[in-house]
Protein backbone atom coordinates (compact mmCIF):
# COMPACT_ATOMS: atom_id res chain seq x y z
CA UNK A 1 0.00 0.00 0.00
CA UNK A 2 2.43 2.62 -1.20
CA UNK A 3 0.33 5.70 -0.86
CA UNK A 4 -0.82 8.51 1.32
CA UNK A 5 -4.58 8.82 1.59
CA UNK A 6 -6.19 11.83 3.25
CA UNK A 7 -9.99 12.06 3.30
CA UNK A 8 -11.95 15.01 4.69
CA UNK A 9 -9.20 15.90 7.14
CA UNK A 10 -10.21 18.72 9.49
CA UNK A 11 -8.06 19.85 12.37
CA UNK A 12 -8.69 22.43 15.08
CA UNK A 13 -5.94 23.56 17.43
CA UNK A 14 -7.15 23.57 21.06
CA UNK A 15 -9.14 26.69 21.81
CA UNK A 16 -9.37 27.73 18.15
CA UNK A 17 -12.72 28.19 16.43
CA UNK A 18 -11.31 28.31 12.91
CA UNK A 19 -9.85 25.04 11.66
CA UNK A 20 -6.19 24.89 10.63
CA UNK A 21 -7.22 22.31 8.01
CA UNK A 22 -10.71 21.98 6.57
CA UNK A 23 -12.01 19.02 4.59
CA UNK A 24 -8.59 18.31 3.07
CA UNK A 25 -8.72 15.39 0.65
CA UNK A 26 -5.99 14.02 -1.59
CA UNK A 27 -4.13 10.82 -2.50
CA UNK A 28 -0.46 10.45 -3.35
CA UNK A 29 0.55 7.24 -5.09
CA UNK A 30 4.20 6.26 -5.00
CA UNK A 31 6.65 7.14 -6.30
CA UNK A 32 6.18 10.81 -5.48
CA UNK A 33 8.34 13.89 -5.02
CA UNK A 34 5.80 16.37 -3.79
CA UNK A 35 5.74 19.87 -2.37
CA UNK A 36 2.97 21.31 -0.23
CA UNK A 37 2.93 25.07 -0.79
CA UNK A 38 0.77 27.85 0.56
CA UNK A 39 0.88 31.14 2.46
CA UNK A 40 1.83 31.50 6.12
CA UNK A 41 -0.73 29.88 8.39
CA UNK A 42 -2.17 27.78 5.57
CA UNK A 43 -1.90 24.56 7.60
CA UNK A 44 1.14 23.10 5.80
CA UNK A 45 3.03 22.20 8.97
CA UNK A 46 -0.21 21.02 10.59
CA UNK A 47 -0.73 18.60 7.70
CA UNK A 48 2.81 17.21 8.03
CA UNK A 49 2.35 16.85 11.79
CA UNK A 50 -0.87 14.91 11.28
CA UNK A 51 0.84 12.59 8.78
CA UNK A 52 3.73 11.92 11.16
CA UNK A 53 1.48 11.34 14.20
CA UNK A 54 2.36 14.46 16.19
CA UNK A 55 -1.24 15.75 16.00
CA UNK A 56 -3.85 13.10 16.64
CA UNK A 57 -7.20 14.69 17.50
CA UNK A 58 -8.32 15.26 13.93
CA UNK A 59 -11.52 14.56 12.03
CA UNK A 60 -11.45 12.50 8.84
CA UNK A 61 -9.34 9.63 7.63
CA UNK A 62 -5.58 9.53 7.18
CA UNK A 63 -3.50 6.57 6.01
CA UNK A 64 0.24 6.56 5.43
CA UNK A 65 1.12 3.42 3.52
CA UNK A 66 -1.95 1.80 5.02
CA UNK A 67 -1.26 2.87 8.60
CA UNK A 68 -3.19 5.30 10.78
CA UNK A 69 -0.66 7.82 12.19
CA UNK A 70 -2.89 8.59 15.18
CA UNK A 71 -3.03 4.99 16.35
CA UNK A 72 -0.11 3.09 14.84
CA UNK A 73 2.83 5.07 16.13
CA UNK A 74 5.34 2.20 16.02
CA UNK A 75 4.60 1.36 12.38
CA UNK A 76 4.64 5.01 11.34
CA UNK A 77 8.00 5.61 13.07
CA UNK A 78 9.48 2.75 11.01
CA UNK A 79 8.10 3.94 7.68
CA UNK A 80 8.49 7.69 8.02
CA UNK A 81 11.65 9.78 8.20
CA UNK A 82 10.63 13.15 9.63
CA UNK A 83 12.80 16.24 9.21
CA UNK A 84 11.57 19.11 11.42
CA UNK A 85 12.02 22.81 10.83
CA UNK A 86 15.49 23.92 11.93
CA UNK A 87 13.90 26.49 14.18
CA UNK A 88 12.28 23.69 16.23
CA UNK A 89 15.61 22.15 17.16
CA UNK A 90 17.06 23.12 20.55
CA UNK A 91 20.27 25.12 20.08
CA UNK A 92 21.24 24.68 23.73
CA UNK A 93 21.64 20.91 23.47
CA UNK A 94 25.35 20.03 23.25
CA UNK A 95 25.09 17.22 20.73
CA UNK A 96 27.60 16.16 18.08
CA UNK A 97 26.73 15.56 14.43
CA UNK A 98 27.47 11.85 14.80
CA UNK A 99 25.18 11.64 17.85
CA UNK A 100 22.31 13.30 15.98
CA UNK A 101 22.54 10.63 13.29
CA UNK A 102 22.87 7.86 15.88
CA UNK A 103 19.63 9.19 17.39
CA UNK A 104 17.87 7.93 14.25
CA UNK A 105 19.54 4.55 14.35
CA UNK A 106 19.20 4.01 18.10
CA UNK A 107 15.44 4.53 17.83
CA UNK A 108 15.24 1.07 16.24
CA UNK A 109 16.75 -0.51 19.37
CA UNK A 110 15.51 -1.01 22.91
CA UNK A 111 17.42 0.43 25.88
CA UNK A 112 20.33 0.41 26.69
CA UNK A 113 20.84 1.19 22.97
CA UNK A 114 24.45 0.10 22.58
CA UNK A 115 26.10 1.23 19.37
CA UNK A 116 27.65 -1.69 17.52
CA UNK A 117 30.38 -1.66 14.88
CA UNK A 118 27.67 -2.27 12.27
CA UNK A 119 25.77 0.79 13.49
CA UNK A 120 28.90 2.92 13.31
CA UNK A 121 29.51 1.76 9.75
CA UNK A 122 25.96 2.65 8.76
CA UNK A 123 26.32 6.12 10.27
CA UNK A 124 29.61 6.58 8.39
CA UNK A 125 27.95 5.53 5.12
CA UNK A 126 25.11 8.00 5.52
CA UNK A 127 27.53 10.81 6.42
CA UNK A 128 29.59 9.96 3.35
CA UNK A 129 26.51 9.99 1.14
CA UNK A 130 25.40 13.39 2.42
CA UNK A 131 28.96 14.79 2.41
CA UNK A 132 29.06 15.59 6.11
CA UNK A 133 31.65 13.07 7.25
CA UNK A 134 34.27 15.69 8.04
CA UNK A 135 31.84 17.33 10.48
CA UNK A 136 31.13 14.10 12.38
CA UNK A 137 32.72 15.23 15.63
CA UNK A 138 31.60 18.86 15.40
CA UNK A 139 28.77 20.13 17.51
CA UNK A 140 25.47 20.44 15.64
CA UNK A 141 25.10 24.04 16.77
CA UNK A 142 28.45 24.99 15.19
CA UNK A 143 27.13 24.19 11.71
CA UNK A 144 25.52 26.46 9.13
CA UNK A 145 21.83 26.06 8.23
CA UNK A 146 22.56 24.01 5.09
CA UNK A 147 24.77 21.56 6.97
CA UNK A 148 22.26 21.27 9.80
CA UNK A 149 19.60 20.39 7.25
CA UNK A 150 21.86 17.65 5.86
CA UNK A 151 22.47 16.26 9.36
CA UNK A 152 18.73 16.09 10.11
CA UNK A 153 18.23 14.45 6.74
CA UNK A 154 20.93 11.91 7.61
CA UNK A 155 19.14 11.18 10.91
CA UNK A 156 15.94 10.47 9.00
CA UNK A 157 17.66 8.36 6.33
CA UNK A 158 19.80 6.22 8.62
CA UNK A 159 16.81 4.11 9.63
CA UNK A 160 15.94 3.40 5.98
CA UNK A 161 12.46 4.95 5.80
CA UNK A 162 10.05 4.53 2.89
CA UNK A 163 9.06 8.17 2.91
CA UNK A 164 10.62 11.46 3.97
CA UNK A 165 8.33 14.12 5.45
CA UNK A 166 10.10 17.45 5.63
CA UNK A 167 8.83 20.61 7.30
CA UNK A 168 10.24 23.72 5.58
CA UNK A 169 13.61 22.24 4.55
CA UNK A 170 14.49 25.48 2.76
CA UNK A 171 13.74 27.90 5.57
CA UNK A 172 16.56 30.23 6.63
CA UNK A 173 18.82 29.07 3.75
CA UNK A 174 20.45 31.02 0.91
CA UNK A 175 18.94 30.33 -2.51
CA UNK A 176 21.92 28.29 -3.79
CA UNK A 177 21.77 26.10 -0.66
CA UNK A 178 18.02 25.66 -1.18
CA UNK A 179 18.73 24.40 -4.70
CA UNK A 180 21.43 22.09 -3.35
CA UNK A 181 19.04 20.59 -0.78
CA UNK A 182 16.26 20.26 -3.39
CA UNK A 183 18.68 18.41 -5.68
CA UNK A 184 19.86 16.17 -2.87
CA UNK A 185 16.27 15.28 -1.99
CA UNK A 186 15.58 14.44 -5.61
CA UNK A 187 18.67 12.19 -5.78
CA UNK A 188 17.51 10.40 -2.62
CA UNK A 189 14.06 9.97 -4.16
CA UNK A 190 15.45 8.71 -7.49
CA UNK A 191 18.37 6.56 -6.28
CA UNK A 192 17.02 5.15 -3.01
CA UNK A 193 13.39 4.90 -4.09
CA UNK A 194 12.22 6.98 -1.14
CA UNK A 195 9.10 9.10 -1.50
CA UNK A 196 9.44 12.76 -0.57
CA UNK A 197 6.71 15.04 0.75
CA UNK A 198 7.85 18.47 1.87
CA UNK A 199 6.37 21.74 2.99
CA UNK A 200 7.87 24.80 1.32
CA UNK A 201 7.11 28.46 0.88
CA UNK A 202 8.83 28.52 -2.48
CA UNK A 203 8.92 25.79 -5.07
CA UNK A 204 11.48 27.35 -7.40
CA UNK A 205 14.49 25.35 -6.06
CA UNK A 206 12.61 22.13 -6.93
CA UNK A 207 11.21 23.12 -10.33
CA UNK A 208 14.04 21.42 -12.33
CA UNK A 209 12.95 18.09 -10.81
CA UNK A 210 9.36 18.42 -11.99
CA UNK A 211 7.71 17.97 -8.60
CA UNK A 212 4.11 17.31 -7.87
CA UNK A 213 2.62 20.34 -6.11
CA UNK A 214 -0.21 20.62 -3.60
CA UNK A 215 -1.51 24.17 -3.14
CA UNK A 216 -2.96 24.46 0.36
CA UNK A 217 -4.66 27.20 2.26
CA UNK A 218 -6.61 25.29 4.87
CA UNK A 219 -8.23 23.56 1.90
CA UNK A 220 -6.66 22.08 -1.19
CA UNK A 221 -6.69 24.54 -4.10
CA UNK A 222 -4.74 22.47 -6.57
CA UNK A 223 -2.81 19.25 -6.88
CA UNK A 224 -0.79 17.99 -9.82
CA UNK A 225 2.34 18.68 -11.82
CA UNK A 226 3.95 22.03 -11.11
CA UNK A 227 3.29 23.16 -14.67
CA UNK A 228 -0.43 22.41 -14.27
CA UNK A 229 -0.91 23.81 -10.78
CA UNK A 230 1.26 26.91 -10.67
CA UNK A 231 -1.20 28.90 -12.75
CA UNK A 232 -2.73 32.31 -11.99
CA UNK A 233 -6.26 30.96 -11.60
CA UNK A 234 -5.12 28.49 -8.91
CA UNK A 235 -2.65 30.73 -7.07
CA UNK A 236 -4.90 33.77 -6.99
CA UNK A 237 -7.54 31.74 -5.15
CA UNK A 238 -5.09 30.25 -2.64
CA UNK A 239 -2.94 33.31 -1.96
CA UNK A 240 -4.87 36.28 -0.59
CA UNK A 241 -1.83 38.56 -0.87
CA UNK A 242 -1.30 38.13 -4.59
CA UNK A 243 -0.61 41.19 -6.74
CA UNK A 244 -0.71 41.45 -10.51
CA UNK A 245 1.75 43.68 -12.35
CA UNK A 246 1.40 43.56 -16.09
CA UNK A 247 1.93 39.91 -17.00
CA UNK A 248 3.56 39.12 -13.67
CA UNK A 249 2.10 37.77 -10.45
CA UNK A 250 3.77 38.74 -7.18
CA UNK A 251 3.01 36.49 -4.24
CA UNK A 252 3.26 38.30 -0.92
CA UNK A 253 4.06 36.62 2.39
CA UNK A 254 0.58 37.32 3.70
CA UNK A 255 -0.74 35.45 6.65
CA UNK A 256 -3.41 33.08 5.43
CA UNK A 257 -7.08 33.74 5.62
CA UNK A 258 -9.64 31.59 4.01
CA UNK A 259 -10.51 33.12 0.64
CA UNK A 260 -14.23 33.03 0.00
Amino acid at each position, binding site marked *: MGEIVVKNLTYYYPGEEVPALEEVTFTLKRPFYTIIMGPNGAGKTTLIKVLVGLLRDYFGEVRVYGHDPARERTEI*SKIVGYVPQLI*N*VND*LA*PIKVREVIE*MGLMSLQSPPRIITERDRKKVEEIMEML*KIRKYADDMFTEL*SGGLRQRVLLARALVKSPKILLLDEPFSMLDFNIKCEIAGLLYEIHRDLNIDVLMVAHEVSPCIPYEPQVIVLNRRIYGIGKASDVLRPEVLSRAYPGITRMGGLMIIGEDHAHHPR
Partner: protein
Amino acid sequence: MLIILVNLMIAALLSSLMVGIASPMITFSKSLMAGFSFIHGVLAGGLLATYLYYVLDLTVPPPEVITLLYVIAIAFLVGELIERGYSTDAASAISTSVSAMFSVLFAFLSGPYASRAWAIVIGTSVIVAPKDIILLTVFLVLLVIIQVLFKKELMYISFDPEGAYTLGYAVRFYRYIIYISIALVVVALTYTLGIIIAHILIATPGALALSISHKRYLQISILIALVISLAGYILAYVMGTPPSVGVGLMASGVLIAGELFKRRGIKSAQ
Protein backbone atom coordinates in the same frame (compact mmCIF):
# COMPACT_ATOMS: atom_id res chain seq x y z
CA MET B 1 35.97 22.96 64.88
CA LEU B 2 38.11 21.07 62.36
CA ILE B 3 35.44 18.37 61.95
CA ILE B 4 32.81 21.02 61.28
CA LEU B 5 35.04 22.59 58.64
CA VAL B 6 35.83 19.23 57.01
CA ASN B 7 32.13 18.29 56.96
CA LEU B 8 31.34 21.67 55.43
CA MET B 9 33.92 21.16 52.67
CA ILE B 10 32.72 17.60 51.98
CA ALA B 11 29.14 18.88 51.73
CA ALA B 12 30.25 21.66 49.39
CA LEU B 13 32.19 19.16 47.26
CA LEU B 14 29.32 16.66 47.00
CA SER B 15 26.74 19.34 46.26
CA SER B 16 29.07 20.85 43.65
CA LEU B 17 29.37 17.49 41.92
CA MET B 18 25.59 17.09 41.94
CA VAL B 19 25.03 20.57 40.60
CA GLY B 20 27.89 20.31 38.11
CA ILE B 21 26.35 17.18 36.62
CA ALA B 22 22.70 18.24 36.73
CA SER B 23 22.85 21.95 35.96
CA PRO B 24 23.78 21.62 32.25
CA MET B 25 20.97 19.09 31.76
CA ILE B 26 18.53 21.45 33.51
CA THR B 27 19.67 24.24 31.17
CA PHE B 28 19.73 22.40 27.84
CA SER B 29 16.46 20.61 28.51
CA LYS B 30 14.94 24.06 29.20
CA SER B 31 13.78 22.91 32.63
CA LEU B 32 15.01 25.84 34.72
CA MET B 33 11.53 27.14 35.52
CA ALA B 34 10.45 23.61 36.41
CA GLY B 35 13.55 23.37 38.64
CA PHE B 36 12.63 26.58 40.44
CA SER B 37 9.08 25.32 40.95
CA PHE B 38 10.53 22.12 42.45
CA ILE B 39 12.52 24.25 44.91
CA HIS B 40 9.22 25.76 46.05
CA GLY B 41 8.00 22.18 46.27
CA VAL B 42 10.82 21.39 48.71
CA LEU B 43 9.47 23.99 51.11
CA ALA B 44 5.93 22.56 50.88
CA GLY B 45 7.29 19.02 51.17
CA GLY B 46 9.43 20.06 54.13
CA LEU B 47 6.41 21.54 55.89
CA LEU B 48 4.41 18.38 55.12
CA ALA B 49 7.25 16.35 56.67
CA THR B 50 7.26 18.67 59.68
CA TYR B 51 3.52 18.16 60.10
CA LEU B 52 3.78 14.36 59.81
CA TYR B 53 6.90 14.16 61.99
CA TYR B 54 6.07 16.56 64.82
CA VAL B 55 2.28 16.79 64.88
CA LEU B 56 1.31 13.26 63.84
CA ASP B 57 4.41 11.61 65.31
CA LEU B 58 5.17 9.64 62.14
CA THR B 59 8.91 8.96 62.15
CA VAL B 60 9.03 6.77 59.04
CA PRO B 61 9.85 7.61 56.29
CA PRO B 62 12.42 10.32 57.13
CA PRO B 63 11.53 13.95 56.31
CA GLU B 64 13.95 14.07 53.37
CA VAL B 65 12.20 11.11 51.73
CA ILE B 66 8.74 12.64 52.31
CA THR B 67 9.99 15.86 50.77
CA LEU B 68 11.49 14.01 47.80
CA LEU B 69 8.20 12.15 47.23
CA TYR B 70 6.28 15.45 47.36
CA VAL B 71 8.68 17.06 44.87
CA ILE B 72 8.41 14.04 42.56
CA ALA B 73 4.61 14.42 42.73
CA ILE B 74 5.03 18.07 41.74
CA ALA B 75 7.37 16.96 38.93
CA PHE B 76 4.63 14.66 37.63
CA LEU B 77 2.13 17.54 37.83
CA VAL B 78 4.44 19.74 35.71
CA GLY B 79 5.05 16.88 33.26
CA GLU B 80 1.37 16.09 32.85
CA LEU B 81 0.44 19.74 32.34
CA ILE B 82 3.10 20.00 29.61
CA GLU B 83 1.75 16.80 28.06
CA ARG B 84 -1.69 18.45 27.94
CA GLY B 85 -0.39 21.41 25.97
CA TYR B 86 0.65 23.89 28.68
CA SER B 87 4.00 25.65 28.22
CA THR B 88 6.80 24.76 30.65
CA ASP B 89 6.49 28.25 32.16
CA ALA B 90 2.74 27.92 32.72
CA ALA B 91 3.05 24.38 34.10
CA SER B 92 5.82 25.53 36.47
CA ALA B 93 3.80 28.53 37.62
CA ILE B 94 0.74 26.38 38.33
CA SER B 95 2.78 23.83 40.30
CA THR B 96 4.48 26.66 42.23
CA SER B 97 1.09 28.01 43.26
CA VAL B 98 0.01 24.52 44.34
CA SER B 99 3.15 24.24 46.47
CA ALA B 100 2.58 27.73 47.91
CA MET B 101 -0.91 26.68 48.94
CA PHE B 102 0.36 23.49 50.58
CA SER B 103 3.18 25.41 52.29
CA VAL B 104 0.64 27.69 53.97
CA LEU B 105 -1.68 24.79 54.79
CA PHE B 106 1.01 22.60 56.40
CA ALA B 107 2.58 25.59 58.18
CA PHE B 108 -0.86 26.33 59.65
CA LEU B 109 -1.42 22.68 60.64
CA SER B 110 2.07 22.38 62.12
CA GLY B 111 1.47 25.34 64.46
CA PRO B 112 4.61 26.22 66.48
CA TYR B 113 6.61 23.43 64.78
CA ALA B 114 6.39 25.28 61.44
CA SER B 115 9.41 27.35 62.44
CA ARG B 116 11.53 24.19 62.11
CA ALA B 117 11.08 24.42 58.33
CA TRP B 118 13.09 27.64 58.48
CA ALA B 119 16.20 25.42 58.28
CA ILE B 120 15.09 24.46 54.77
CA VAL B 121 15.09 28.10 53.71
CA ILE B 122 18.45 29.07 55.12
CA GLY B 123 20.13 25.66 55.01
CA THR B 124 22.03 23.80 57.68
CA SER B 125 25.45 23.65 56.05
CA VAL B 126 27.14 25.76 58.71
CA ILE B 127 26.65 22.75 60.96
CA VAL B 128 26.75 19.93 58.43
CA ALA B 129 25.71 16.73 60.18
CA PRO B 130 26.86 13.25 59.11
CA LYS B 131 23.29 12.54 57.98
CA ASP B 132 23.55 15.48 55.54
CA ILE B 133 26.71 13.93 54.07
CA ILE B 134 24.89 10.58 53.74
CA LEU B 135 21.89 12.28 52.10
CA LEU B 136 24.11 14.07 49.59
CA THR B 137 26.08 10.90 48.84
CA VAL B 138 22.98 8.75 48.28
CA PHE B 139 21.31 11.37 46.06
CA LEU B 140 24.56 11.91 44.12
CA VAL B 141 24.90 8.17 43.46
CA LEU B 142 21.25 8.00 42.28
CA LEU B 143 21.82 10.98 39.99
CA VAL B 144 24.94 9.46 38.47
CA ILE B 145 23.15 6.14 37.86
CA ILE B 146 20.28 7.94 36.09
CA GLN B 147 22.71 9.98 34.00
CA VAL B 148 24.71 6.93 32.96
CA LEU B 149 21.62 4.85 32.11
CA PHE B 150 19.72 7.51 30.18
CA LYS B 151 22.40 9.93 28.93
CA LYS B 152 21.61 9.39 25.25
CA GLU B 153 17.85 9.56 25.57
CA LEU B 154 17.88 12.66 27.78
CA MET B 155 20.05 14.41 25.19
CA TYR B 156 17.83 13.25 22.30
CA ILE B 157 14.56 14.44 23.81
CA SER B 158 16.14 17.75 24.83
CA PHE B 159 17.61 18.31 21.36
CA ASP B 160 14.44 17.65 19.38
CA PRO B 161 11.43 16.42 21.36
CA GLU B 162 9.10 16.24 18.35
CA GLY B 163 11.71 14.48 16.24
CA ALA B 164 12.38 12.07 19.12
CA TYR B 165 8.66 11.32 19.37
CA THR B 166 8.39 10.57 15.66
CA LEU B 167 11.41 8.28 15.94
CA GLY B 168 9.55 6.29 18.59
CA TYR B 169 11.27 7.50 21.77
CA ALA B 170 9.15 7.60 24.93
CA VAL B 171 9.46 11.38 25.31
CA ARG B 172 7.03 11.56 28.23
CA PHE B 173 8.92 8.90 30.22
CA TYR B 174 12.31 10.52 29.64
CA ARG B 175 10.93 13.94 30.58
CA TYR B 176 9.97 12.45 33.93
CA ILE B 177 13.49 11.04 34.28
CA ILE B 178 14.86 14.57 33.81
CA TYR B 179 12.42 15.92 36.39
CA ILE B 180 13.21 13.17 38.91
CA SER B 181 16.92 14.00 38.51
CA ILE B 182 16.16 17.66 39.19
CA ALA B 183 14.02 16.66 42.18
CA LEU B 184 16.97 14.73 43.67
CA VAL B 185 19.27 17.70 43.24
CA VAL B 186 16.96 20.37 44.64
CA VAL B 187 15.95 18.28 47.67
CA ALA B 188 19.59 17.52 48.52
CA LEU B 189 20.71 21.11 47.94
CA THR B 190 17.84 22.66 49.84
CA TYR B 191 18.13 20.37 52.85
CA THR B 192 21.88 20.95 53.18
CA LEU B 193 22.52 24.42 51.76
CA GLY B 194 19.13 26.14 51.75
CA ILE B 195 16.62 27.38 49.22
CA ILE B 196 18.48 30.56 48.28
CA ILE B 197 21.71 28.77 47.43
CA ALA B 198 19.75 26.10 45.54
CA HIS B 199 18.31 28.86 43.31
CA ILE B 200 21.81 30.20 42.61
CA LEU B 201 23.45 26.84 42.06
CA ILE B 202 21.02 25.01 39.78
CA ALA B 203 21.15 27.69 37.08
CA THR B 204 24.58 29.30 36.94
CA PRO B 205 27.12 26.47 36.36
CA GLY B 206 25.21 24.79 33.54
CA ALA B 207 24.14 27.98 31.75
CA LEU B 208 27.65 29.39 31.89
CA ALA B 209 29.37 26.13 30.93
CA LEU B 210 27.13 25.69 27.89
CA SER B 211 27.79 29.25 26.79
CA ILE B 212 31.55 28.64 27.01
CA SER B 213 31.84 25.21 25.36
CA HIS B 214 29.43 22.59 24.08
CA LYS B 215 32.19 20.00 23.95
CA ARG B 216 33.52 20.19 27.51
CA TYR B 217 30.44 21.55 29.22
CA LEU B 218 30.31 18.85 31.89
CA GLN B 219 33.86 19.38 33.14
CA ILE B 220 33.44 23.17 33.03
CA SER B 221 30.12 23.00 34.85
CA ILE B 222 31.57 20.85 37.67
CA LEU B 223 34.56 23.21 37.92
CA ILE B 224 32.30 26.28 38.08
CA ALA B 225 30.09 24.66 40.72
CA LEU B 226 33.17 23.80 42.80
CA VAL B 227 34.62 27.31 42.53
CA ILE B 228 31.29 28.96 43.35
CA SER B 229 30.60 26.70 46.34
CA LEU B 230 34.04 26.44 47.96
CA ALA B 231 35.17 30.02 47.29
CA GLY B 232 31.67 31.29 48.13
CA TYR B 233 31.78 29.67 51.56
CA ILE B 234 35.27 31.01 52.27
CA LEU B 235 34.20 34.48 51.12
CA ALA B 236 31.13 34.36 53.35
CA TYR B 237 33.31 33.25 56.28
CA VAL B 238 35.75 36.11 55.68
CA MET B 239 32.95 38.68 55.33
CA GLY B 240 31.03 37.24 58.26
CA THR B 241 27.83 36.86 56.22
CA PRO B 242 25.49 33.91 55.64
CA PRO B 243 26.83 31.48 52.96
CA SER B 244 24.24 32.53 50.37
CA VAL B 245 25.82 36.00 50.20
CA GLY B 246 29.29 34.60 49.47
CA VAL B 247 27.97 32.00 47.02
CA GLY B 248 25.83 34.61 45.26
CA LEU B 249 28.77 37.00 44.92
CA MET B 250 31.02 34.24 43.59
CA ALA B 251 28.33 33.18 41.09
CA SER B 252 28.13 36.76 39.79
CA GLY B 253 31.93 37.03 39.59
CA VAL B 254 32.29 33.71 37.76
CA LEU B 255 29.49 34.70 35.36
CA ILE B 256 31.27 37.94 34.43
CA ALA B 257 34.64 36.16 34.06
CA GLY B 258 33.01 33.46 31.90
CA GLU B 259 31.42 36.04 29.60
CA LEU B 260 34.89 37.51 28.95
CA PHE B 261 36.24 34.11 27.81
CA LYS B 262 33.34 33.09 25.59
CA ARG B 263 33.83 32.51 21.87
CA ARG B 264 31.55 31.46 19.06
CA GLY B 265 31.98 30.06 15.56
CA ILE B 266 29.77 28.72 12.78
CA LYS B 267 30.95 26.24 10.17
CA SER B 268 29.49 26.15 6.70
CA ALA B 269 30.08 23.80 3.77
CA GLN B 270 31.72 26.55 1.73
